[in-house]
């Protein structure tokens, strides 16, 4: 089919064709050698979800241990190992890379590109991620690290953590760091250079904006932590004293370097989630996003401020009051663009025609929970109040509201929204909603009461506590809640596995989507598009539907709405 034919076609339709190449290698070899961004995206999504399940089991073990006072199920050594594994896994092996997974699959599709800018580099970044995860999890057979996911020296020094687990943790940061850096450069190059004709910066889908800023933040934040863990490694084995107070080194230097990475990391984890929400809410409100420019701009402002707030993790450390004041103000400031986003999402729902799909359930649940996570952030940013709340369960509750209520709910939103595109089949909507309610209720039971635990004086990272401190009831509620949350997650896992073969066929555009990934078949062919349409707005698919309606006089139903509306 020549280009002229397509250009002359009166009505736009899906233009993509599977190129059938006779299979020369076995299927599993294909997965190992692939440089197709969609296959790499799936590898990312599946691998990181496995790490999510591992991190979840670690969390459940800790919750069981804390369910009753003076519990002897786990030793303090194993508890410290679990808390280190849980935090490290969730941050480095789940939330950050799963966002790269969504980005890998959907950035090229949404900008109308045929692949990432550097396909082989893309494969490298996935295999490095897996390698980093394997290096880290191999410590299960030896001595897992036990100094916490931020590994403050001197506790993480050779004197107090002599086992190789700490070194494995360092190598995990190195390896997954290179993986993320390589991936970030790839995203940046792809988004800057490979957009469809007509897709100016003002027409870039908000998810792609989020991935662009995510990539820039990774490029800014990873080198300092790579330097810091290298210094820790040389302190441990090669006789340097960067963080060694007995030789005029400074443990506080580590805290600055680590949190200079650590706080941008928080936004690295949540910004792509914001992007997913900004795509899903307009689609199911049948309404354009409210304040496109404000949402895109607030993403950039958050990223800028994210590099200026790191010492709010160190309000109790030896830092002068004037510095604390600065970091309180910068942390307050970051609340403004975040608030703007939330107002814009709600305004997008306002006067819409809302279709309550499972993906939208997760998007709305995310907003509801993230609001609370943001508000508790204001308490913690007020440094005198933080002196009471820092390092308690209040903080644990706060960041789980932003990371589980926030990032994990957006990830589930993305799974329900994009599963039909990735597999060509619909997931079961009812089961999705049941999963949502289990997760939402379980989550609040687990973490809402932890605010109270922190306020009543329970520090984080203790493996057990005495019965007379008034913490027992809340801990028990929290433990029960964590299992309800886990059941909710398992329901979605079952839904995914079942829908792979039994889901209804989705067709190219089951949701009446706005962005270009819905222009091609589900799943997309290797080359994504035979012909990329010219982009005239931030919602190219809506423009195309309108054009079809004008030319044919037939109102376009959603490609598959009848399929999910019946459920």
């Amino acid at each position, binding site marked *: 089919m020549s280009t002229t034919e397509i250009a002359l076609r009166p009505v736009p339709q899906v233009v993509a064709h599977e190129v059938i190449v006779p299979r020369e290698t076995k299927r599993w070899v294909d997965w190992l050698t692939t440089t197709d961004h969609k296959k790499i995206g799936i590898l990312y999504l599946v691998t990181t979800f496995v790490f999510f399940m591992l991190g979840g089991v670690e969390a459940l073990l800790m919750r069981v241990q804390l369910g009753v006072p003076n519990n002897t199920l786990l030793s303090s050594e194993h508890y410290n190992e679990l808390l280190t594994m849980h935090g490290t896994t969730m941050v480095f092996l789940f939330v950050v890379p799963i966002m790269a997974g969504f980005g890998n699959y959907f950035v090229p599709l949404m900008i109308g590109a045929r692949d990432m800018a550097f396909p082989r580099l893309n494969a490298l970044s996935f295999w490095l991620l897996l390698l980093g995860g394997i290096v880290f999890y191999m410590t299960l057979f030896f001595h897992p690290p036990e100094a916490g996911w931020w590994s403050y020296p001197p*506790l993480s020094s050779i004197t*107090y953590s002599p086992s190789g687990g700490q070194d494995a943790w360092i190598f995990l940061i190195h390896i997954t760091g290179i993986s993320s850096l390589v991936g970030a450069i790839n995203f940046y190059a792809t988004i800057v250079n490979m957009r469809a004709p007509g897709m100016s910066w003002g027409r870039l889908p908000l998810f792609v904006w989020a991935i662009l800023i995510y990539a820039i933040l990774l490029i800014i934040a990873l080198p300092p932590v790579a330097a810091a863990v290298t210094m820790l490694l040389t302190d441990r084995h090669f006789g340097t004293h960067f963080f060694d107070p007995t030789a005029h080194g400074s443990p506080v230097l580590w805290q600055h370097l680590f949190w200079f990475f650590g706080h941008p990391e928080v936004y690295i984890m949540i910004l792509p989630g914001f992007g997913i929400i900004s795509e899903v809410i307009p689609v199911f409100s049948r309404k354009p996003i409210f304040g496109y420019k404000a949402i895109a701009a607030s993403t950039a402002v958050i990223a800028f401020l994210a590099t200026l707030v790191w010492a709010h993790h160190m309000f109790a450390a030896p830092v002068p009051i004037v510095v604390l004041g600065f970091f309180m*103000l910068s942390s307050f400031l970051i*609340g403004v663009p975040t608030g703007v986003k939330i107002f814009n999402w709600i305004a997008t729902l306002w006067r819409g025609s*809302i279709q309550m799909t499972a993906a939208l359930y997760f998007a709305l649940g995310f907003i509801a929970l993230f*609001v609370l996570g943001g508000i508790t952030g204001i308490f913690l940013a007020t440094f*005198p109040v933080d002196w009471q709340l820092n390092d308690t369960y209040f903080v644990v509750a706060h960041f789980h509201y932003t990371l589980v209520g926030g990032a994990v709910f957006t990830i589930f939103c993305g799974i329900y929204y994009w599963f039909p595109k990735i597999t060509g089949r619909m997931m079961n909507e009812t089961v999705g909603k049941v999963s949502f309610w289990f997760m939402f209720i379980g989550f609040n039971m687990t973490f809402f009461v932890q605010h109270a635990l922190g306020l*009543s*004086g329970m520090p984080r990272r203790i493996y057990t506590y005495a019965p007379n401190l008034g913490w027992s*009831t809340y801990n028990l509620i929290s433990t029960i809640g964590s299992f309800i949350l886990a059941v909710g997650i398992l329901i979605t896992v079952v839904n995914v596995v079942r829908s792979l073969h039994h889901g209804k066929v989705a067709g190219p555009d089951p949701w009446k989507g706005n962005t270009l990934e819905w222009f091609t078949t589900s799943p997309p062919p290797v080359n994504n598009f035979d012909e990329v349409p010219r982009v005239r707005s931030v919602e190219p698919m809506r423009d195309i539907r309108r054009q079809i309606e004008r030319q044919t006089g037939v109102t376009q139903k959603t490609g598959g709405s009848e399929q999910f509306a019946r459920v």
Partner: protein
Amino acid sequence: MLVLAASLILAPSALANFITPKSGGSPNADQIASLYKIILYVAAVVFVIVEGALIYSIYRFRAKKSAVAAQIHGNTRLEIGWTVAAALILVVLTVVTFVKLPGIINPPNSNANGYLAASLSAPEPPNGKEFTVCVTGRQYIWRYTYGAQCVNNAFNSRLPYSYQEMTVPVGTTVKLVIQSTDVVHSWWVPSLGGKVDAVPGYTTYTWFKIPHTGLWHGQCAQLCGRNHAAMTALVHAIPADEYAAWLSNQSALISAANAQVTQLRRILILNGNL
């Protein structure tokens, strides 16, 4: 949720401890709790408005009730409005924080009948009279050395000391000089104020002034190793006029114990066991 609601209703007396930080042991803890409450009121209003708008729009604008979506792309005035509103709330909270700050970081004078001693370094009450205790963190116990000379050497052998339980005089501004000999610890007794990290190589300070006799519980708040959970602290406040006697009694107990150890050591050496 039901369990939570039930437990909240059944234990109303305990409720105060679960919605605000602990206080009542020292003016700085009280000031932090009152700052927290101000933020809590503002936060509650914001929370109700935002969640209310969210729930209302989900309820009101379902496809069933609202078949046609309004094609609005934005509203610059509205957007500037809520950006400024959010910023203003934060300006107010900043002002309140800095108004409250002096009461949290600056210690007041000791009562006239407090146990007084001269001070060496910050933080100082206006008249410079306070009692100094050096707090030394190590895996997994807190050591307290009593007296201003401890600032130069927390292990000064002439000063009385104790482990885990600190005894202090009532009505007296007590300055804590906090150090660590190994890893990072964090000193925290919730009712007596916020936490302060004990970082090896650094000296940090805090203070409290306990209004009446009593016992306060706290524990190390920074992961310090396997027995982190066991690194608890107790602060025991006794009447100021009994305090001098307590100090000399503690010194006497330490000397007696030292003498016993010396004797035991001598016996062990004589018997060839050491």
